[in-house]
């Protein structure tokens, strides 16, 4: 039995943003492979750089988007100026910009073919109108969350930092393979 915390979803077609279930977040992080990170930074002290590195280490194909750095490479990945420039399908668009900028970025993402499956706005970024436009097209939305924190929380890694993961389990966490200091999302529930 895995007792997980955070409040249940209300009924209705749209997500109750602010109260995502662990299953919803885990489902997204387990299903996406290619993540376009809008607002990527070349500064290793910035959260966007740290999150990009972490997601690459966890096996995601991260595509950095930043017009100022386009044509170059970040953490070994080619940088593009915009989502439209990316030459292959994108599963998830992760928005590392402010809440206002998240609107037009979401609209740009919704012109892609095929559509991304998920639009994820970083911790402190929230744009409910943009979220509604995405959900109307069947695209899942996460707002005001950090994928690194969520991965760490659901896998159990974040517990090593004394953070309240709000997860209780009598099942073993699953090692991610290499070494002992990485855990997987495929934890029995």
């Amino acid at each position: 039995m895995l007792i997980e915390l955070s409040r249940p979803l209300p009924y209705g077609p749209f997500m109750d943003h602010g109260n995502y279930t662990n299953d919803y977040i885990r489902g997204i992080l387990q299903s996406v492979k290619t993540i376009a990170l809008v607002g990527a930074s070349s500064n290793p002290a910035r959260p966007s750089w740290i999150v990009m590195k972490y997601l690459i280490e966890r096996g995601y194909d991260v595509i950095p988007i930043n017009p100022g750095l386009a044509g170059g490479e970040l953490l070994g990945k080619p940088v593009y100026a915009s989502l439209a420039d990316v030459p292959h399908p994108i599963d998830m668009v992760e928005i590392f910009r402010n809440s206002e900028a998240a609107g037009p970025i979401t609209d740009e993402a919704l012109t892609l073919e095929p559509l991304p499956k998920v639009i994820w706005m970083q911790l402190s970024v929230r744009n409910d109108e943009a979220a509604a436009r995405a959900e109307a097209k069947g695209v899942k939305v996460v707002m005001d969350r950090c994928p690194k924190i969520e991965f760490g929380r659901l896998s159990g890694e974040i517990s090593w930092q004394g953070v309240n993961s709000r997860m209780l389990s009598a099942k073993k966490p699953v090692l991610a393979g290499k070494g002992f200091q990485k855990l997987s999302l495929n934890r029995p529930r």
Partner: protein
Amino acid sequence: MTDRLPGFDTLAIHAGAAPDAATGARATPIYQTTSFVFDDVDHAASLFGLQAFGNIYSRIGNPTCAVLEERVAALEGGTAALAVASGHAAEFLVFHTLLQPGDEFVAAKKLYGGSINQFNHAYKNFGWNVVWADPDDPATFEAAITPKTKAIFVESIANPGGVIVDLKAIAAIAKKHRIPFIVDNTMASPYLIRPFEHGADIIVHSATKFLGGHGNSIGGLIVDGGSFNFAGDDRYPALSKPRPEYGGMVLGETFGNFGFAIACRVLGLRDLGPALSPFNAFLILNGIETLPLRMQRHSDNALAVAEHLASHDKVSWVSYPGLRSDRYHNLAKQYCPKGAGAVFTFGLSGGYEAGVKLVSNLKLFSHLANIGDTRSLVIHPASTTHRQLTDDQKVQAGAGPEVVRLSIGLEDKDDLIDDLNNALDAA
């Protein structure tokens, strides 16, 4: 699946403690090691750069200590916690993270004597200036605030004298002036009072007392409530300014609502060094598993003993908020309806002499300088824990010459009452 919120007793046993990923060990292993092997060079760099979660060196973090941290964070309803070598180390690291030389903080003048001493003397070397306020009169906290005030500090139930602090009233003042509100929750434990629910931003514990609960380990905890927004606030450069030791990282921005706990770890614990031993963390964790049962029994026994003493003719007064006649009884009903804790003071009609005699005549009560043990304890604060204070400060702190402090344990209450009766008769 519906995510449900477990109860306090379940958290006391399970929070933070999944079976060991490598071995399946069900009890939390004691990771008695100084250091942890890196997966590879890049992994080492990520850990040192605070870019990955994991273990480096047990001064900075240790998996046994981390279980304790998550357990206490969950019980208090905080975002994260940090385990340290003692309750005093917890207080020190909190102020080190919040204060610059020349800064002030406002503290309740009814506190554990060691904290009064730490604030009055040790902190002077750092240029941190305490300003005292009266916890019975929240307005005195507001009056003490100046542009240099960086924090407010109180104990939820104050040691030694069963003082219940009106947390909500002081929290409102802290919020109005945008100052973090720190509560030392040692005497109540989260079983009796959960200060974040009353507006605290940061909680500290001496885990030496009720969390460990068996009188065998010194330890402390800092809990981050995640409620104070440090990011962008120039008054708190540890959290709001680029940190040169981490390549310009802004901790309050990078770690969001658990940034304060991370700053205490990576700036305070890492550089100043008061780390908790994993063995102590293990013993404290074991204690916490029975915290709800023990705290209830402590409080029930204490009420029975306090009621008995209140009716004894050699006792001039008893200060226990669980007593209906006590001046703090209404606050106790509001903040700790399950019980008012184990510790209280009383005065002997015979004064100082009678106090000294009582202490030496007791057979079951141990005469020592601690509280929150399974065993019942007794002390004369004026000559011990509060000795370094001036006479005036002693009275202010509820530790005058005639005062005896008890920490009621988990024994049969009738045996405790019998022991006190015999010792009082002989006194």
